[in-house]
């Protein structure tokens, strides 16, 4: 049964093409996949940081900060991500080096990885700001007030009460963002960063086995999503531990 399925594949040389060592291209694909994961995780983490700060700034910040954040979230969410990625990918290293230059330091070589994380992280941050702002608003005010009434400092309140209490409301939105982050890494192909999509294109171009390689890349993305879903489900279950179970609605 399995043999009859695998035999035609073997005959077309799929396994040679996907072998992990040259002349197979599997190693390249995996390396691209790992790069994509690195960028995706970095961008998601940066987005979470920006998002937390952004949500707090929008909710509790002064008028100037609120306006600035509004400009940030509006602009980022208005402009196509590809345009932003191109802009930030080339602008960020430039800004860093100009700053270093004016401060009298020598320019540094900003790696594609750092620039990529910065670019996608800034995009993620805008969306995360809104996800987290909504989640914080969903926390019953009385819980935050109880923290204040017992003398918690603002940072303690955030760490001990607000953040854990808003988590169950944030997870569906954040899970979306994580999946988007893993796939947005493909945008970095256009700037020549060796992530999965670019590696796939190169392998496909060199061997003309377009279908094989893009299918393989698709499977990798799909596996990532499936594994993520399991993980997200666990985290969500844990975050909802204090909430009553969803009533069956029919």
């Amino acid at each position, binding site marked *: 049964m399995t043999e009859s399925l695998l035999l035609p594949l073997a005959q077309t040389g799929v396994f040679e093409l996907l072998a992990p060592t040259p002349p197979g291209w599997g190693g390249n694909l995996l390396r691209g996949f790992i790069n994509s994961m690195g960028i995706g995780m970095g961008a998601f983490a940066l987005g979470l940081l920006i998002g937390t700060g952004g949500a707090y700034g929008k909710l509790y910040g002064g008028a100037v900060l609120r306006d600035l954040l509004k400009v940030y979230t509006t602009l980022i969410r208005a402009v196509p991500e590809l345009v932003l990625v191109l802009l930030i990918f080339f602008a960020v290293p430039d800004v860093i080096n100009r700053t270093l230059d004016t401060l009298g330091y020598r320019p540094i070589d900003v790696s594609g990885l750092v620039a990529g994380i910065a670019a996608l992280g800034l995009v993620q941050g805008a969306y995360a700001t809104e996800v987290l702002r909504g989640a914080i608003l969903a926390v*019953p005010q*009385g*819980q935050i*007030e*109880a*923290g*204040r*009434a*017992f*003398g*918690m*400092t603002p940072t*303690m309140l955030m760490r*001990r*009460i607000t953040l*854990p*209490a808003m*988590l169950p409301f944030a997870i569906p939105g954040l899970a979306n963002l994580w999946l988007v982050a893993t796939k947005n890494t493909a945008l970095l192909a256009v700037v020549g960063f060796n992530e999965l999509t670019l590696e796939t294109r190169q392998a496909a171009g060199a061997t003309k086995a377009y279908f094989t390689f893009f299918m393989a890349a698709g499977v990798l993305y799909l596996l990532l999503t499936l594994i993520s879903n399991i993980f997200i489900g666990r985290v969500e279950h844990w975050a909802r*531990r*204090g*909430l*009553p179970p969803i009533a069956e609605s029919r």
Partner: protein
Amino acid sequence: MTATIRAIPRNTVSDAAAEAIHIEDLHKTFGTLHVLKGVSLSARDGDVVAVIGSSGSGKSTLLRCINCLESPTSGVIRVNGEEIRLKPDGNGSTVPADRKQIERIRSRLGMVFQSFNLWNHLTLIENVIEVPVSVLGVKRERATAEAEKLLARVGLLEKRDIYPAFLSGGQQQRGAIARALAVQPRVMLFDEPTSALDPELVGEVLAVIAGLAREGRTMILVTHEMKFAREVATHVVFLHEGRLEEEGSPDALFSSPKSERLQQFIRRVG
């Protein structure tokens, strides 16, 4: 530079030591709404002050000014002889001048809310040890041992690892009382602790509060339970439209109310 001799700050005066709460000419406005119009009130250690009055008379606002959940528009508030330092906020009202001071004072005022407000993401025992551990710096093991005693006292020890959402209203409120007791409060502040409860659950919560009153805890208790106020209070104040209309011993107030308004109020609520 010569050393300057500073005036002794007012918050260190000791003649008010036995006075747990002292409120003088407290005003509070929300926008154009004048909610508290010059309320003065004092509670000495061991007093149980019941605050009664119809809905909207400003009872909650008064209570929330004591721990600065609301900043008074003007007036003086002293907690255990320490005056809460306020500064003008530029809009004709005030804000706390010293956040650290407010946090310190708050951490020794055990507030119990109408809607319980237990933290949903923490189990009952975690709720009770949260403030001792993270605000007061008590060691976790010690706080847990204390918390178990308090939970036993309110009859909830077997529920220690349950999340609040899985408890009844009465159990949640008893848990909230344990949480307030865990900070070893100098004064407990109750804001209508039984108003959100089903009638059959009111008794169990009142029993706990009555027990606290008997052991001489200082408390300010906003309540609609007149019979209960009469039983446990050492002093009753009647608020009407932001003014302290009448005050006195429970017997005096409930048996022979002087003001027209209080007579009407007592007739209405029974």
